[in-house]
C-alpha cells in the first residue's frame, strides 16, 4: 500500500509527468498517480475514499484557470479540494493532508519539485490553518 496519492488532470499534470519520466525520472515508491480526464471530474468522494483506503495524503493537480478546456474544471477542482479539506478536518484528519496545485503541461520541472515536497513529512503546524 502506497501512502501518497496524486490525482492529476490528464491535460496538464499527466503530460508534465510523462515529460518528466522521459528524462529518466521515476515516481517515488510511496506515490500512486491516478489520472483524471479533467480535474473538473474530481469528486470529493475520490479524496474521502482514498483516506478510507489508507492513503495518508492526497495531492490534486489541475490546469491553470484559463487553461481548462472545460472552463470551470480548475475552479471546481479547487473548490472540491477545499470541501474535502473541510469535511476531513471535521472527522479529525489534518486538512493539510489534501493539497491542491495548478500546473501546465510544460511544468515538468516544477512537478518534480512538488512531488519531492509532497513526500516530505508535513511541517509542524505553526497555527491552525484556516479553512479555504
Amino acid at each position, binding site marked *: 500500500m502506497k501512502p501518497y496519492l496524486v490525482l492529476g488532470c490528464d491535460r496538464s499534470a499527466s503530460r508534465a509527468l510523462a515529460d518528466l519520466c522521459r528524462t529518466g525520472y521515476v515516481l517515488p515508491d510511496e506515490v500512486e498517480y491516478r489520472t483524471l480526464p479533467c480535474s473538473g471530474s474530481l469528486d470529493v*468522494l475520490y479524496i474521502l475514499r482514498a483516506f478510507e483506503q489508507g492513503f495518508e495524503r492526497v495531492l490534486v493537480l489541475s490546469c491553470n484557470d484559463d487553461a481548462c478546456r472545460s472552463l470551470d474544471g480548475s475552479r471546481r477542482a479547487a473548490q472540491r479540494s477545499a470541501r474535502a479539506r473541510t469535511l476531513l478536518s*471535521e472527522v479529525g484528519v489534518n486538512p493539510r493532508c489534501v493539497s491542491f496545485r495548478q500546473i501546465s503541461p510544460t511544468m515538468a520541472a516544477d512537478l518534480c519539485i512538488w512531488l519531492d515536497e509532497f513526500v516530505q513529512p508535513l511541517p509542524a503546524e505553526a497555527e491552525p490553518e484556516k479553512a479555504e
Partner: protein
Amino acid sequence: MIVAERKPIAELTSRLAPYRRILVVGCNTCVAVCSAGGAKEVAVTSALLRIALGREHPETRVDETCVERQCEVEMNAELAPSLGNYEVILSMACGVGVQTLAEQFNTAVVIPALNTKFMGRPEGLGEWSERCAGCGNCVLERYAGVCPITRCSKNLLNGPCGGSANGRCEVDPERLPCAWQLIYDRWVALGQLDRYLTNEPAKDWSSSLHGGPRRIQREDIR
C-alpha cells in the same frame, strides 16, 4: 421542494458513538435534488463516518442505501429484511422521512442526519432559497406572486417596514432581498399598485401550524 442541509459531522459522530452497526438511509426525492440526502451525500457521509468512527472501533460497519421517497411506508418496506443487522438507522431524509422510518419500524433507533430547512427552490447551482411557509391559506394572489409571510423577515402583510434600503432587507442585506421591494416592482410592472391601498386584515393563523398539526382528508379518494 423540501430543502435540507446535513448536520455537522461532529454532531452525527457523537450521536452514533455507541453504535457499531449503522445503516445510512438516503432519500432520492427532495433532499436528493438539493444535494443533501441522495445517494451521493449518503456515500460522502458514510465515508466520513467510517473514517471518524473506525479510528477507535475498526469493527464499526457503516452500510449505505437509498429509498426513492422515505416518507412512503411502501417504499421503505424494502429495508425491513435487513434491519436486524443494524443497531441504528441514520436517516438522510427530511424530518418527514425520519418520522416515517420511526413510525414504521418501531424497534429501530432512528437518528436524523439532516436539518430540514424550508420549502424552496434552487437559485442556480448550489444555492437554494425559501419560498413558502406553509401558512395553509395562500395569499400570493394578493401580493403579485411574492409571499410576504415567507420572504419578509417580519412577515408583514402591510409592509414594508423602515428597514428596506436599496431593495435589500436590513436583517441580512447581502443575502436577502426586501420582499416588499419585490412586491412593489411586480405591482408596478402589472399596473396593480392600487392593490396596496387595501389594508390586509389580521391573518387567520389557524390554518397554519399555529392552529395545531394539520391533516387533510379526501373522502372521494379514501
